[in-house]
């Protein structure tokens, strides 16, 4: 019975994710809802992404500068900060923040709509809740998370720069030139491909959890928590898988 339930849950999740995405190419389109979601997910997360990225960049640079200077390799700080931020830490950090802020919001909003029978109302009015609610959320996440990731990357690099130059007393020009060396197609692609997938995953998981809410305010608590926890785990697991695939595709030898 348990296994059967799990399988049917997975099936529902799969259906929601595909139908949610297909909604982007099938009428009717809900532009207004999408703009509203983009505003909430993107513009609303702007400040927190900047804050988090700045401190991650600074801490990373500080750690590396400390370790590398004891080896006499301080000049590599920029290169290592650049690679780790662009390829790995930037996308993951932005996605985690996004899951915590936007994913939880989606799950609790949809969950309370379920509990208030508002989704039933939509269905009765002949509106497909997936198209009206899920598609705009998926699309806005797919657009906004990559944008936020790029902004976060840039801010992180500036944070790293601040530490390298003003705390570790390295040459600023050299820092930027090593960053520029890092900005190859392979590196940028490896970092930029991830947030699209993360955004899609976060939106699908959160919407699914919201839709499967039952059992009053406690149920809402459970589904919001599950949305964030499952999103976070999936981000980290899929990050590993994506890294493996991307490194292989882009021809890096490990």
């Amino acid at each position, binding site marked *: 019975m348990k296994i059967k339930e799990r399988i049917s849950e997975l099936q529902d999740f799969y259906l929601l994710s595909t139908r949610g995405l297909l909604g982007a190419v099938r009428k009717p389109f809900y532009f207004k809802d999408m703009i509203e979601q983009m505003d909430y997910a993107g513009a609303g997360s702007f400040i927190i992404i900047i804050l988090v990225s700045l401190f991650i960049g600074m801490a990373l640079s500080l750690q590396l500068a400390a370790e590398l200077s004891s080896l006499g390799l301080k000049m590599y700080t920029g290169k290592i900060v650049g690679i780790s931020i662009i390829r790995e830490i930037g996308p993951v950090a932005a996605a985690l923040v996004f899951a915590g802020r936007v994913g939880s919001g989606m799950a609790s909003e949809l969950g309370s709509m379920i509990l*208030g*029978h*508002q989704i039933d*109302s939509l269905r*009765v009015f002949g509106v*497909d809740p997936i198209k009206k609610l899920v598609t705009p959320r998926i699309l806005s996440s797919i657009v906004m998370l990559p944008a936020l990731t790029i902004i976060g990357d840039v801010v992180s690099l500036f944070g790293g720069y601040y530490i390298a130059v003003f705390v570790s007393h390295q040459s600023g020009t050299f820092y930027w030139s090593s960053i520029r060396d890092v900005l190859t197609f392979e590196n940028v692609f490896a970092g930029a491909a991830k947030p699209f997938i993360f955004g899609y995953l976060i939106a699908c998981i959160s919407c699914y959890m919201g839709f499967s809410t039952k059992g009053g305010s406690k149920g809402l608590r459970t589904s919001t928590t599950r949305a964030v926890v499952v999103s976070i785990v999936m981000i980290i697991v899929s990050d590993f898988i994506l890294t493996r695939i991307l490194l292989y595709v882009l021809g890096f030898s490990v």
Partner: protein
Amino acid sequence: MIVFDKVWFSYGLHHVLKDVSFTISENERVAILGESGEGKTTILKLILGLIRPDAGKIIIDGEDISNKSEDELRKVRMKFSIVFQEGALFDSLNVKENVAFCLREYSKLSEDEIDHKVRELLRIVGVEHAIELMPDELSGGMHRRVAIARSLAACEPKMFLYDEATTGLDPVNADIICKLILDLSKNGRGLIIVTHKIFDAVKIAKRFIFLKDGIILFDGDKDDLLHSTIPEIQIYLNEVNFS
């Protein structure tokens, strides 16, 4: 237009409907009566295809809807207009946007026309002054009335479904809503009202279906109901005699 043919329905192990059959035609005014938790709301949800029966057939206008896809069900649902028990207004939209929801979704009216229409609908239910409020700023009765206004905006339903439209309202407002419901189906459109207030039901409906323990205990017109000797129904009738 609505046929329930040996419908069974359960939530998990809890059997709500056991072998329920009835036929309701398009212009009938029916009240579904029964105690709290007997499955009255469940019947409405089954009619709309929001939930599916475990066994049996539900036929709407000659089509069996028990196995239809969401897309096909949409057309079936357009034949009805429902007011949910909880009102189920969209709580992130204000009263005006709630009522305008269907108009925006299905008609190409201009902003002015929508505004006009919304005000007119709100005037019918008597909550015009609340047009700018949010649903959580409304009282229970106002909430219900806005929900009725919103259901009226839906495109020309063949039949109205009301789930506990008058429950929890003061007698004055309950009466207003009863009159409103009657008014709306004046031109021969049918309605199903679900309630446990028999007093309001006899004002509106011509036919009464009484649910008990998942089966239909009684199905008949007003006279039959008033002279029924079934003990459960007599308890309800005391309410009518008293008033």
